[in-house]
């Protein structure tokens, strides 16, 4: 579990996050949603230590991340996997080398053991046989899946996904969402997803937090979105007239 306590973040005069306190649950897909500029990416980066908060604490289980020294942070990060919006695959490395990279850096596994692990991860994301291709030679959706394979290769306890569906067609988005949810459940991972995608919210939102103007505006599950009658979350998720009609039909 990851717990955030009283996080504030300002960039100069600009207050981006105000007094955010929330828990992200183990074995569940936790979603951070909100409009552009609401502070989602900043919150995600604070959770993984790429941006330091102005004040507040981030607990990984019982350990405050911001009390750790550099060595302890590096050790903790071996339990963290991250899928970037751009996939962030290394251009000069093949798919195989990209996934193998953390194993090369941090494990004492033999070449054969690494190959078995890499192939398992590729199979897990349904991408067998593309080991020797370069990231530029595969599609955006495949790059995302390679990104997931790299994120899980070290068997992380925490998985962070920054806009995993951006730039993907709806069908591929659903595949990615399902894959992340399955991996989360199988491995009992604490998964935190930063997303704009309303399909994701309704399909895999086991815990959802809505940020609005830097504040925590709503917290709940995808089923509560429809039942609770919270206007703010409903207006955000069912923003277009088409989605409003669909929601009304569903409620009927």
């Amino acid at each position: 579990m990851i717990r955030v306590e009283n996080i504030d973040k300002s960039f100069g005069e600009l207050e981006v996050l105000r007094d955010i306190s929330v828990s992200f649950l183990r074995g569940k897909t936790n979603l951070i949603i909100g409009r552009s500029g609401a502070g989602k990416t900043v919150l995600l980066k604070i959770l993984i230590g790429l941006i330091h908060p102005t004040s507040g604490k981030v607990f990984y289980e019982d350990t405050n991340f911001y009390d750790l020294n550099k060595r302890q942070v590096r050790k903790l990060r071996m339990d963290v996997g991250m899928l970037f919006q751009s996939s962030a695959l290394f251009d000069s490395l093949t798919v195989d080398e990209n996934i193998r990279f953390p194993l090369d850096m941090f494990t004492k596994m033999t070449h054969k053991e690494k190959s078995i692990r890499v192939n398992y991860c590729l199979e897990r994301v349904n991408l067998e046989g593309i080991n020797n291709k370069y990231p530029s030679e595969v599609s955006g959706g495949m790059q995302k899946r390679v990104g997931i394979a790299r994120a899980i290769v070290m068997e992380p306890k925490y998985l962070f996904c920054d806009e995993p569906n951006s730039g993907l067609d709806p069908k591929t988005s659903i595949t990615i969402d399902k894959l992340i949810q399955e991996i989360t459940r199988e491995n009992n991972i604490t998964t935190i997803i930063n997303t704009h995608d309303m399909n994701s919210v309704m399909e895999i939102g086991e815990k959802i937090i809505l940020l609005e103007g830097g504040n925590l505006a709503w917290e709940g599950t995808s089923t509560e979105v429809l039942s609770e009658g919270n206007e703010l979350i409903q207006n955000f998720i069912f923003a277009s007239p088409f989605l409003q009609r669909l929601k009304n039909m569903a409620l009927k």
Partner: protein
Amino acid sequence: MIRNFIFHFGRYVLLLGQSLGGPRKARTYFKEVVRHMYDIGIGSVIIVALISLFIGAVTAVQFAYQLGGTLIPRYYIGYIVRDMTIIELAPTITCLVLAGKVGSNIASEIGGMRQKEHIDAMEIMGVNTASYLILPRIIAGMTMIPLLVFMAATISILGAFLASVPMGFFSGDEFVKGLGLFYDPYNVFMMFVKSVVFSFILITIPAYQGYFVKGGSIELGNSSTAAVVYSNIFILLADYLIAVVLTA
């Protein structure tokens, strides 16, 4: 301006400290060192050879012209070309050229990795990114660039010979006699000292510029330009300081 300089200098020193922190696993760095040795060394052979050839040729022809009609023996041209090449032209010109070629490449490669979140990805994995990205380049640069400088000095002297002797400015014997005149191995030592110091400058300054780049393609272009400009300035400054220290 002074505050800005102190800020950047302090951050540069901290980055160097972090990058010299050493690898978790030496084997993972070895592959990177070899890759950069190839890029910096083999990738620069042709440009360095061409520039050295012409610099040697022009130096010889110019001195033949300058000394024409004077009482100075013509074989002095070989001596002048040799010492100018070894002490100054080979290390300094080669490294100024490499600051443009290798330096801009390092700044844009590392800067591109920063912009495409590759560095963030490595940080999250727990990699010491400063060390992984900069240390192999420093090792590769400080190994290959002195060799390139040595090659440049050799080709430059060869260029002087080829441009002058067949054209009849002086005979081959005169040139060879001049080359052996007042030979001091200390000058070769000075050449290697310069090339090691310059290579450190032309690797680390661009690495710093790339590592901390922010924004988009314009900022990346600016960092690449700044990398070359600052590398050149600091190479020339170091050239002066080394000359003062080693000839005192």
